[in-house]
């Protein structure tokens, strides 16, 4: 089912007096195509949970409309929306067994849809095998590990075959290993069921690895959306560029002089079409080419081995962070006595931004699109 969010705004009224209130989501417009897995990505407090709560009907939008398919559900009560939700802390009923937790939503069906005990069991067994928790059915949630609880929560959300599955940071309580494993599982389950899914996370790696589309938001506003690779390769502003990618993008203060990009005193790249003046330069770690003829010079700090690649950690006074991280092939490891490293840059890994607004400055052959 396609989901359309049209100008969604949520302002929480102030608790006391006539203050301004908190704008948690601001004029959010987005279309989620049928059957896709969308990752809603943003830093803590940017309104992700509020967004999900509006979609599932627990919060009423201050303005804007929500459509499920062609139906306007903005004023439809939560009970009637047919949404499956995995809560940030699972919200499994602690006094019920796993089995009873899973069939709980089925017990709400009325009239024609009412199921017999056997039908419920059949459905429960089916989702349980999907998330691989068959052997846990008799336990209580308190007797499960975080990852198992999370899978029970997914099973409970899936059992009524929801039109839409919402997951609010379902992996935030898991350890790194389990997190990796479960996110693969979520991807697999989503593929198998084909249910349109919105997945909230503040972990960009998680978002990029499993979703069809990522939506980057900040302070309640949509900053960019698209396929993970596209958003990564072509960030529309400084925030998105900084937010995506590990190790993070390296940010430098620089300037453009006669279509040449300068960092400090080094001329590092041809930037055709960029206007002269100060810019913020973002260089992805993989955008560095270790080359003694390179324009960008940095003081070598240390070399970290990461297996196939190595990471050169160096210092540059123009860099916003204390160190510059570049990832290069391990064959090109600098010699031990080297103190200054030079880099050439890959133009498609270098992004320029307006210093004031953070808007992207595009450059390229004969192309010039300013922010």
């Amino acid at each position: 089912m396609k989901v359309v969010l049209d100008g969604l705004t949520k302002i929480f009224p102030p608790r006391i007096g006539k203050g301004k209130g908190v704008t948690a989501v601001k004029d959010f417009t987005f279309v989620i195509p049928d059957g896709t897995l969308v990752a809603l990505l943003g830093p803590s407090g940017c309104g992700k949970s509020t967004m999900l709560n509006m979609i599932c009907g627990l919060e009423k939008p201050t303005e804007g409309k929500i459509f499920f398919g062609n139906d306007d559900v903005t004023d439809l009560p939560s009970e009637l929306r047919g949404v499956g939700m995995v809560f940030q802390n699972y919200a499994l009923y602690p006094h019920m067994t796993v089995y009873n937790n899973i069939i709980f939503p089925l017990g709400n069906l009325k009239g024609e849809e009412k199921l017999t005990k056997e039908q419920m069991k059949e459905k429960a067994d089916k989702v349980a095998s999907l998330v691989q928790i068959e052997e846990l059915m008799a336990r209580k949630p308190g007797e499960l590990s975080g990852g198992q609880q999370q899978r029970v929560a997914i099973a409970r959300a899936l059992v009524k075959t929801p039109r839409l599955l919402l997951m609010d940071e379902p992996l935030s309580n898991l350890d790194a290993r389990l997190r990796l494993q479960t996110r693969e599982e979520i991807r697999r389950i989503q593929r198998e069921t084909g249910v349109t899914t919105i997945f909230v996370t503040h972990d960009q790696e998680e978002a990029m690895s499993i979703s069809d589309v990522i939506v980057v938001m900040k302070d309640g506003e949509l900053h960019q959306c698209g396929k993970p690779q596209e958003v990564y390769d072509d960030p529309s502003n400084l925030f998105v560029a900084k937010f995506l990618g590990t190790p993070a993008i390296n940010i430098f203060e620089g300037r453009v002089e006669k279509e040449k990009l300068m960092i400090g005193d080094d001329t590092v790249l041809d930037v055709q079409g960029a206007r002269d003046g100060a810019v913020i330069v973002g260089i992805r770690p993989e955008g560095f080419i270790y080359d003694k003829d390179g324009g960008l010079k940095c003081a070598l700090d240390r070399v970290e081995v990461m297996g196939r690649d190595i990471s050169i950690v160096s210092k540059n006074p123009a860099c916003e962070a204390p160190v510059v991280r570049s990832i290069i092939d391990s064959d090109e490891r600098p010699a031990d006595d080297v103190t200054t490293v030079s880099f050439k840059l890959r133009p498609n890994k270098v992004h320029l931004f307006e210093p004031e607004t953070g808007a992207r400055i595009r450059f390229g052959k004969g192309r010039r699109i300013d922010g």
Partner: protein
Amino acid sequence: MIEKNNLKAWLYLLPALLFMIVFMVYPIVDVFVYSMEEGYNFVSQRSSGLGLYNFSYVLHDTYFLQAVKNTFIMVIITVPISTGFALLIALALNSIQKLRELFQTIYFLPYVTNTLAVGLVFMVLFKKTAYSDGLVNLLITFFGGESVDFIDGPYWAKMFVMCFYIIWIVLPFKVLLLTSALASVNKMYYNAAKVDGTGSFRVFTKITLPMISPTVFYLVITGFIGAFKEYSDAVALFGTDLNAAGMNTIVGYVYDMLYGDSGGYPSFASAAAIILFVIVLTITCINLLVSKKHVYYS
């Protein structure tokens, strides 16, 4: 090391233990002994021997049987009604936002009011004399009914007032505990249930009730025990001669045997007290057994 710690623990417990032994264990044992001593004389402090005669006497005493009957009726009527009613009020309180504290205070007022004062008010409400009717009787006659003397009239009327009174007295405490129990249920369970389309009755029976079951269970147990020990409320309504009023309770019977007009029979009093003890113990054990199945502790 562990033994040393154990010793320390016992040392710390000693004062409390001493108090317990002097003021609880010793009297209980003493009551047992009294209840077995036959023909005990209060003046000479002598008895003619040990046996079960005291129990036999008490169990054949019509006043005692009346007291047992009264007590059981009070327990069976007041415990479920007061708990259920308190739950309804607590749910209502929990669902309103405005003026909640005000209502909570109002509901709690009877609890901090003196029993005898409340009894006086009840007298005014329910009493009927040759010259005047109480407020309740005025209402009854207004709606075309026959006025009843609730304080000196038929048994059912007196029992009605008694139960009404007990419920009124215990309600605030139960409401208070249940409101806080309800407020402590995490809202996310309700949200999850809502998204799954759960009706409010099912939410109540499947989520709210199990979540607050420890509090409900606590109230039922203490309610049972409290109602079995009912006495002062009966005095507040019907005066000290409860046997004449036919409204005596087991504790009242014990008191009468010790100090009342027919007083001076500590052996009978002790036997009655032991019987009450056995009854309360049995009921509490049954409660505990039932709770094993139905009470959820997180």
